[in-house]
């Protein structure tokens, strides 16, 4: 399937180059009338598909290469693995659920709403069990947040490895969540017996076989964490934790417990496997850093990128990408075409939402010269996205997680794009 798409795309490219040869400034002049315009097309004459045909719509067949993909050699088994959002082919900021990346430690499970139970126990006044319906009776909120796996861009620490924004930066999605603040549920169970909340933790755990569990400091739990049941207006997908998942804004994806089943108030971090063996970063001298929860400001150019070569003639072009920060709003994104010698400030699609993806555009000209494209995000704290070298100087090269370096795409004179590392 993919093969045919590839060939057709190539043919298309050849066609556009031919047109480019004949073209003058101000757009190509047509020498012959376009039959798509002068002849009555089938779709303009015969009728189309009825409303009873597609009770739940999927993208049109022409878009079938806009899908999640995985990298087989990364993990031993696709059951405990990850796939990547096709961010190179999306625009705007909201990720459709159907192509939002998945990461499971023991596979995605089917859990009916009727079988869903959520327990709150530990240092609470009243240990409680909620049903799904109970959750829908608490006041709820809507928020857009990005969810980024701490391992996003992790394969790039040692050098340029994967050729595509989908693979280098696709462990991220951005959705509008509907849910109940975790704070509301904690108060329902009562925090009186927890006394001083400053040194308290909330341990959260999933209902799947991995029973992934993470410790969250009480301060964050009472701040903006959501117990969510809808994403982008509809029920969560199975692969994102249906019927209920935790949303931990701005913090690493592993903490966003799916198939949430238990919330325990504790007086210490549990130090589970996912917060010791995994999601910790080894420095050059062998010491490791833990509790690196916040995802720092980061950005990437999605078009052009290796999977999205420049398909058009010289002249107007749009460079576009995504920026985000776990510390709050994106305030500015700069773009460089020469590998970081010169920078231009890009236009933000709209005012950045806090802890959500922000779309940026640089409306510019494609001169046909090679480019080394980079983007550099800044957030509301004034933090500037670092270069790979800055990160290496700070942490060494043994880290796996939390790589928020500036990404470089090399665009050659044919508009072909490659993932590279530069001096």
């Amino acid at each position, binding site marked *: 399937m993919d093969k045919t798409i590839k060939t057709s795309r190539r043919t298309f490219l050849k066609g556009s180059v031919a047109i480019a040869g004949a073209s003058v400034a101000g757009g190509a002049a047509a020498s012959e009338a376009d039959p798509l315009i002068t002849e009555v097309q089938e779709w303009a004459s015969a009728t189309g598909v009825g409303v009873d045909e597609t009770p739940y719509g999927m993208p049109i067949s022409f878009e079938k290469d806009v899908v999640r993909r995985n990298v087989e050699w990364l993990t031993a088994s696709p059951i405990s693995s990850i796939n990547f959002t096709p961010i190179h082919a999306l625009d705007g900021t909201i990720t459709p659920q159907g192509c939002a990346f998945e990461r499971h430690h023991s596979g995605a499970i089917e859990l009916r709403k009727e079988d869903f139970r959520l327990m709150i126990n530990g240092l609470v006044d009243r240990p409680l069990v909620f049903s799904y319906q109970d959750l829908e009776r608490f006041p709820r909120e809507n928020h857009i947040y990005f969810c980024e796996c701490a391992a996003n861009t992790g394969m790039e620490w040692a050098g340029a490895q994967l050729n595509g924004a989908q693979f280098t930066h696709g462990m991220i999605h951005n959705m509008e969540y509907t849910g109940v603040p975790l704070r509301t549920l904690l108060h329902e169970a009562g925090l009186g017996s927890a006394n001083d909340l400053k040194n308290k933790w909330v341990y959260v755990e999933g209902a799947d076989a991995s029973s992934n569990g993470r410790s969250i400091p009480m301060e964050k739990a009472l701040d903006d964490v959501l117990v969510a049941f809808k994403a982008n207006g509809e029920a969560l997908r199975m692969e994102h934790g249906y019927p209920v998942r935790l949303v931990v804004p701005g913090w690493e994806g592993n903490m966003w417990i799916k198939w949430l089943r238990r919330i325990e108030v504790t007086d210490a971090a549990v130090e589970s496997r996912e917060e010791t*063996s995994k999601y910790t970063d080894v420095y050059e001298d062998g010491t490791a850093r833990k509790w690196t929860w916040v995802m720092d400001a980061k950005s990437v150019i999605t078009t052009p990128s290796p999977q999205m070569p420049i398909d058009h003639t010289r002249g107007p072009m749009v460079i576009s990408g995504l920026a985000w920060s776990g510390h709050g709003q994106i305030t500015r994104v700069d773009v460089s075409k020469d590998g970081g010698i010169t920078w231009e400030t890009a236009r933000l699609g709209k005012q950045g939402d806090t802890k959500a993806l922000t779309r940026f555009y640089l409306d510019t000209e494609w001169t046909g010269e090679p480019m080394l494209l980079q983007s550099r995000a800044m957030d509301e704290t004034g933090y500037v996205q670092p270069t790979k070298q800055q990160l290496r100087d700070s942490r060494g090269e043994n880290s796996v997680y939390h790589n928020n370096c500036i990404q470089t795409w090399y665009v*050659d004179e044919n508009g072909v794009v490659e993932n590279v590392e530069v001096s």
Partner: protein
Amino acid sequence: MGSSRMSKSLSQIVLPVAGGTALALSVALVVANLDYGRSKISSLEQRVEQTSLQAEAARNKASEEAAVVAELKAKVAEIQLAAIENATGGTNLTENAPRKDIAYGLGRAALTEEITAWDVDVLPDGRGLPEGRGDVFTGEEVFAEKCASCHGDFAEGVDNWPVLAGGFDTLADKDPVKTVGSYWPYLSTVWDYVHRSMPFGEAQTLTPDETYAIVAYILYSNDMVDDEFELSHENFPDIEMYNTGGFVIDDRPDREYTRWRGEPCMKNCKSAVEITMRATFLDVTPDEGGESRMDHTASENTPTFVASTDSTNTSVETETLEISALETDPAVVLAGEKVFKKCKACHAVGAGAKNKSGPQLNDLMGRMMGSVDGFKYSKAFKAAMEEGRVWNDAELAAFLAKPKAYMKGTRMSFAGIKKEKDLTAIIEFLRTTSN
């Protein structure tokens, strides 16, 4: 405050009246147009004349009335806004869920046996451990049966499955081997994880005794206990893990945030940029991954990007970036940047370069010797400055070839550059460095 409240009460009175007026006006407009259409026409000429006159008049009238309508519309919008504000008592209607710390009375009490069934996590101090015991020998048997197919007979890992043993003293190496023995800071984590998540595909089936035995065996595989060892809830706290002290809590705020805030460089941020690594050389991207058309063989010669030497140019885009098109050969400049590594310990160049143990070397060509503000030069350099000597290609070449010979008494402890090629390169490079 007082005035805004007054305008609100005013708007309440005006709202229905103004709305009514707008309606009446638009009705009048329609009637007027109808009248023009119905007027009597006696001849063709007359008709033409009349029509154009009427059109003119209608246009005038229409534009007059349009202006009135627009004004009214604006007024109505203002009034409506005020009305909304009034209705909500001036508060914003979009708000998050109430932050009450009261109970809604939802959910039901959790029963003790339910809590016991689900609350199985174990904390570093051993809290949460059930009573039980298991020895290395038993552990080896259970491990062989339930774990070895993936993790290997000796927990050394099969294929891509996780390695559980060994890797000691590799954490500072290029590819650290992180195992239970070499990396995990707490034994509780091993017990907790094995008990709740393993074996993969049959999780939450191990009994406490089996788990104690397996954990004892994993310790044994890591040479941390002998083969006689038995692990139990009683001796659990006595086991010391190798890497307990190996972790620090997130230190990015001090280590990185303080340094990485501020206005970033926008122009001439580097002197030259070259590609140092390419993903297509590794080619680990899955084939079905998309449509990259990078020709692996063709583009061996990737360009070098060089900052412009011409600092008088203001047009950022076209003048500061030139690809392989400068009088100075970018390859030579790059070679020079490499030679500069010998100088880096003492000299800085580029944006914001400061004096180190040697003076900053920006815009060196044409610069007076010994002239950088705030740097304490030797007597030799001070004298050179008083003589008005200036750096150029020849002077620099002579100095860098044999610093001590060229400038007797200089404090620059640097032997000199031997190779002609390196000399040319460093000079070309220093031609491009500026703030």
